[in-house]
């Protein structure tokens, strides 16, 4: 690593109407380093990145690239100057091939005929050679003619990186690159990052997952509420210190688990089958227990949850609730028996973002708070709504506020509260803390612990192994639609769970 900075961000200021998004933020990115930028949601990370690549213009401060002042109009300009940003959400065209995506907008061209210089066509053989060389450099074997929509999230990420490399960008910005990856895919990504680093590329790395910062980054800059807090060598700090800088206070603990006397088996599944998805799954759940379900993406965890609560049909299998055989022909019948599910994807499945907090909170309560012709009793609705908002401490101006305008953590709380209003005895939470910041995460964990201590039984599906270790009494590991193993709390370790999942 070279001590000389390649990109200097000096005292950047940025305001939006009514909000100071960034004030006096400075970062220096050295050649060949991986520099983490972390902070809670709303800390200003995304705004900063958008300023660096020209989506926003700063109100004050300056940026110096390779020793010269630098201002930039738009992301294309940034590409041309050697700064490539790889966004959290894929910007690839799903219906085009890998090759077409990589060279989208800067195709290599050649004259249609040697004497007709003005009419040009795409030079696919050259692009093919160039792209192959890049993937070879990354140590990846990818079919360049594959259609992007047929590929997995991890491969798409690699394509984005390859696309950046076709510009020969010395500076790469990676925005939450691991958010949708499984741990194995994360390892591959890290190998790539290390390789790029050794070739002299500099990277700004934005992530919520603190472990990753310690694994792959050299220095870390912490932002909080738009303010610059600190830049430190990763080797000189630790996880707890980082969290303290990020939240500005000591988090007593990220996993506030309450010890609960675990009762009898209240729910049991025997021989659940769903063709090609679930393969002969047995499990049971005890009163007051938090049962984790771990596994790689695609192992069938979400599918299991959907089948258990009647959102999809089982081909065969039996469910027992309090030792009595039950069947859930549809989701509402499961809710009536006290079994509920909270989706991993609150935007697509969990909430109607365009509607109010109140409408979302009481969506599952509709049969209970309406009369026989389906007219809602508004006073009862208000009662439940106020109660939920208070209980989970949802930060919203009022109950008619549109959910879309809440922060991610508060949206997630609405999603959880929506299930709690029907007072479920068995609650399946699918990735409840994905994409929320550390503060909200700790709060959600506290809520989960409290629910278990009230005697409810929780099934916690999570890809976040520290979360499984921190919260669960027992964990089932799923692999390719089967149960690959069971681990009790006192025997749990990341290695053991991962070993079963792989």
């Amino acid at each position, binding site marked *: 690593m070279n001590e000389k900075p390649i990109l200097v961000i000096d005292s950047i200021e940025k305001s939006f109407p009514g909000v100071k998004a960034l004030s006096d933020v400075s970062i220096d990115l050295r050649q060949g380093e991986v520099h983490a930028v972390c902070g809670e949601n709303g800390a200003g990370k995304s705004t900063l990145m958008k300023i660096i690549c020209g989506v926003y213009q700063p109100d004050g401060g300056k940026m110096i690239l390779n020793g010269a002042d630098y201002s930039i109009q738009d992301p294309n300009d940034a590409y041309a100057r050697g700064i490539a940003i790889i966004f959290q959400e894929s910007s690839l065209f799903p219906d085009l091939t890998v090759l077409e995506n990589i060279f989208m907008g800067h195709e290599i061209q050649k004259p249609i005929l040697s004497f007709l210089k003005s009419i040009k066509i795409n030079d696919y053989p050259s692009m093919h050679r160039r792209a192959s060389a890049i993937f070879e450099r990354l140590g990846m074997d990818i079919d360049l003619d594959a259609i992007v929509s047929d590929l997995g999230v991890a491969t798409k990420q690699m394509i984005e990186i390859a696309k950046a490399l076709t510009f020969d960008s010395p500076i790469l910005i990676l925005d939450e690159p691991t958010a949708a990856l499984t741990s194995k895919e994360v390892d591959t990504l890290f190998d790539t990052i290390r390789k790029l680093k050794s070739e002299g590329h500099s990277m700004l790395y934005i992530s919520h997952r603190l472990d990753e910062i310690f694994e792959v980054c050299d220095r870390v800059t912490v932002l909080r509420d738009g303010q610059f807090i600190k830049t430190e060598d990763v080797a000189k700090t630790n996880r707890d210190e980082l969290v303290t800088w990020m939240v500005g206070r000591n988090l007593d603990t990220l996993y506030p688990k309450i010890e609960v006397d675990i009762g009898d088996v209240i729910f049991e599944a025997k021989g659940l089958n769903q063709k090609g998805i679930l393969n002969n799954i047995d499990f049971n759940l005890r009163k007051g227990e938090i049962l984790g379900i771990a596994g790689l993406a695609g192992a069938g965890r979400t599918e299991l949850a959907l089948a258990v609560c009647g959102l999809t049909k089982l081909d065969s299998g039996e469910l027992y609730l309090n030792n009595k055989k039950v069947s859930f022909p549809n*989701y509402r019948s499961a809710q009536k028996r006290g079994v509920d599910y909270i989706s991993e994807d609150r935007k697509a499945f969990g909430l109607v*973002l365009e509607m109010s907090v109140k409408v979302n909170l009481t969506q599952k309560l*509709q049969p209970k708070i309406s009369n026989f012709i389906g007219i809602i009793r508004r006073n009862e609705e208000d009662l439940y709504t106020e109660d939920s908002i208070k209980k989970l401490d949802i930060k919203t*101006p009022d109950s008619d506020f549109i959910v879309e*305008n809440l922060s991610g953590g508060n949206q997630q709380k609405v999603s959880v509260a929506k299930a709690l209003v029907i007072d479920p005895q068995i609650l399946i939470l699918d990735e409840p803390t994905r994409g929320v910041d550390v503060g909200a995460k700790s709060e959600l964990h506290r809520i989960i612990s409290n629910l278990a201590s009230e005697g409810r039984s929780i099934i916690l599906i999570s890809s976040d192994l520290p979360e499984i270790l921190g919260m669960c009494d027992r964990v089932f590991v799923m692999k390719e639609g089967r149960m690959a193993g069971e681990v009790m709390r006192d025997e749990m370790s990341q290695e053991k769970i991962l070993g079963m999942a792989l």
Partner: protein
Amino acid sequence: MGTVKKKSFASYLSHQVILVIALIVVVVTFGIIEPVFFKPRVFFDVFAIVGEIGLMALGLTFVITTGGIDLGVGYNLQMSGIVFGLTWATTQNLALAIAFALVTGTLGGFFNGLIVSRTRIPSLVTTLATMYLYRGISMIIAGSNNYAGFPDVLQKISTTRLFGFLPVQFIYLMVLFFILDFIYERGVLGRNLKGMGFNENAVIYSGVNTKKILLGIYTFLGLLCGMAAIVYLGRFSAAKTSMGDNMNFEVITAVLLGGTSTMGGIGSMRGTLIGIIIIGVLKKGFSLLNFSGNIYNFTLGLILILSLLLFSVMEEHKRVSSRKS
């Protein structure tokens, strides 16, 4: 942050205010050209000619709120009317003819609902196909025949004036309006319809059987088409294959004019009611002024596109301002 809600409330209001202003402008314009227009009698006449359109438009508001559409309500009305004519011609039994017309309309809607709720075929394509299917059925049954000679009772069903001035169609329309508006604004159904328009999956994941709802609202719309057919026959006392020809467009225009979004999620029965009245006023005005049907259609098309442009500009403005705050 609290201003966001106020803003959206304000634009919701201004939207209906714009509609009412448009209505007043149209009425005053007609009144200046033809002073007869200011007579209360004429005002009530408007309601005597929008009965069929109104019934169907109120039902269609449910469908469009979910993000769907029914392009062929006019041809469902036509099919129901022809079945009514055929039944009357063969049996001379009015009750049977009414029952068959209602059943036909309902089945027409049910079939649409079945396809839309059980398959992934968009309602736009589904109803485009079935609208010609239903038109074809009328043509096959009736050919160039006219069914006429219906009993006087039928006429009374749609042309009676209570107290000598109030068209009975006004009563039908208002009764249906108040029921549907209440369900739309305060009912579980209305809420789920809007939710489905925004994000159907989230509604399904709350335990709501959205397939049943879709089937229900298309079927209900079909029933309203059947009722509208009876009201229509009461007014024109002949069932022929040209009935309902222009209504597909008029009904959709009334709903969209009222501010219900084709994207789903946003809408109101009140808006639709105002849309219906605007169409009625135009119709009445143009017939008083002896304008041709072509000019009426031209004007309707123009008004629809202008109002859609206006709403899209307002929507964009709302989004920009909420992003800023």
